[in-house]
């Protein structure tokens, strides 16, 4: 299967960094997921064969890491932190706000596949709580109104 040139360059480079091929597995899976949308059967097969692992080895690793998924998510994955620091400053209210606005729950995806929602554990934004990550972008010191603007921006950009 075909990945981007960027992916291939990074993959080839990373293989030279470790004494074992397997060591590139975790970051490689995440980069592959970013390109394909999820770790489909095809991706699992491809990565396993490149690294001389069984598909089971790869699936065992996928199931351990919370960011890795075998099911497609929406284009924009809205990850709301409700862990202690965010909870104290309104993280749960943000989650409820997102649930209402997007009409989906934890790990749900909107019918148009634009948004997914996830309640996540601490994302390292405790001093700027409450915080949300949309894909890899951080949004901090949020209120439901500010979050609305963020989500509207993504909605507009399609």
């Amino acid at each position, binding site marked *: 299967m075909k990945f981007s040139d960027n992916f291939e360059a990074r993959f080839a480079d*990373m293989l030279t*960094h*470790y*004494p*074992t091929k*397997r*060591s*590139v*597995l*975790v*970051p490689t*899976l*995440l980069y592959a997921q970013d390109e394909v949308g999820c770790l489909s059967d095809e991706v699992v097969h491809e990565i396993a064969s490149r*690294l001389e692992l069984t598909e089971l080895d790869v699936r*065992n*690793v996928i*199931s*351990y*890491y*919370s*960011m*890795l998924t075998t099911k497609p998510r929406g284009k924009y994955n809205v990850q709301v932190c*409700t*862990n*202690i*620091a965010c*909870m*104290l*400053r309104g993280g*749960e209210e943000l989650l409820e706000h997102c649930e209402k606005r997007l009409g989906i729950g934890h790990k749900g995806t909107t019918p148009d596949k634009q948004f997914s929602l996830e309640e996540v*554990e*601490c*994302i*390292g*934004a*405790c*001093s*700027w*709580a409450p915080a949300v*990550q949309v894909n*890899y*972008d*951080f949004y*901090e*010191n949020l209120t439901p109104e500010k979050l609305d603007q963020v989500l509207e921006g993504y909605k507009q950009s399609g």
Partner: protein
Amino acid sequence: MATLVSHPDEVKVVSKRFGKGATAIGRYLELDGYKAVQKALTMAPDDIITMVKDSGLRGRGGAGFNTGMKWSFVPKQSSKPKYVLCNGDESEPGTCKDRLIFEHDPHSVIEGVMIAALAVGSQKGYIYIRGEYRYLSVIMQQALRDAYARGFLGKNIFGSGRDLDIYWHGGAGAYEVGEESALMESLEGKRGIPRIRPPFPAVVGLWGGPTVINNAETLASVPHIILGGAQWYAGLGPAKNGGTRLFCLAGHLNRPGVYELPMGYNLKKMIYEVGGGIPNGKKLKAVVPGGSSTPVLLENEIDISMDFDSVMKAGSMLGSGGVVVLDESTCIVKFALRTMKFYQHESCGWCIPCREGTDWLKKTLIRFHNGGGVKKDIDNMQYLSENMLGRTFCPLGDAAAMPMIAFVKKFRKEFEDHLEGRPCPFEKEGRVEELPVLTH
């Protein structure tokens, strides 16, 4: 991008280049960058170790072990390659300091890894950054490319005749991987299941080779010690607690933020002066002093020095520097529930006391918080937690048990107030969790 704050009481060491454009290697060099490693290249490895040992630098990830001492455990001779591994899998709830270091001063981490490698005779280092911090991985990868381009890394670094490679590595979402043995498993491309110890990583680590593992803030402190000297660094804090610390002030505060304060700074002052006190005229209820795994302190227990030994004496831990402040409107049962929900989610399931213990605690707390608790639950939660302590491969079990024991011991009355279907005194309306529960 996280907002920077400052306070007159700050002593900027690790944070001295924050906001100064030091991600660019040229700027980093202008700000004394890569001078420490060049000095270290002229020093005997044992002298570097002694210097770091004497500086009183202790692990900033949470355990607080003397860094120089840790380095000294690496065998001088080894048939297998030695490694240095920087732990940037920052995930302890309440902690957001390594993020700022990677964002504003990535070269200081690289330089710290280089010095550690020189001290223990390693030629390979890895900087592991959690998967959620993708933008920081981008910054770090660029910083490494810049360091290679200048000849600071690779073959014959700084013309010294020594070779040293440092690589970036990324995670994909797992708190437990912040534990050193699980971190190595993850870097080797596996599930982050902890390894039994001994042997310790200093003797048998990555791919069986001796490995030094330090937190990103710890390593970023090292160049400053090499340049400023052990005595200077040790003198910034109380005895055996050298230097400064990035304290992440979070929760119910007027001015939350990451502040670099000397070790031993008074916790009460940190909350009321640096953090600006509690918003809306509310009273302080409790403080979690060092990340979610550290036992909660009451309002009358916070007039203490924030160093490893003093916080330990006060019955908690300095931990990872995440200070979470709770005002009087916080329901401790709910706070305990959110904490246990986290540990239950993150337990890898390898050790039964942790896997079953965190799950039972979470389920009991959900039922309890929703008014379905019985008196015996309170003792059971304490008993269960006490029996998790010390019975697992890695400290995740302890990390869940320690705060739980403190919640029950220090807030028994509040737990009792939730009994027999009485509504949670703090909630306007009950938030219903996934388990079937009694209504409020």
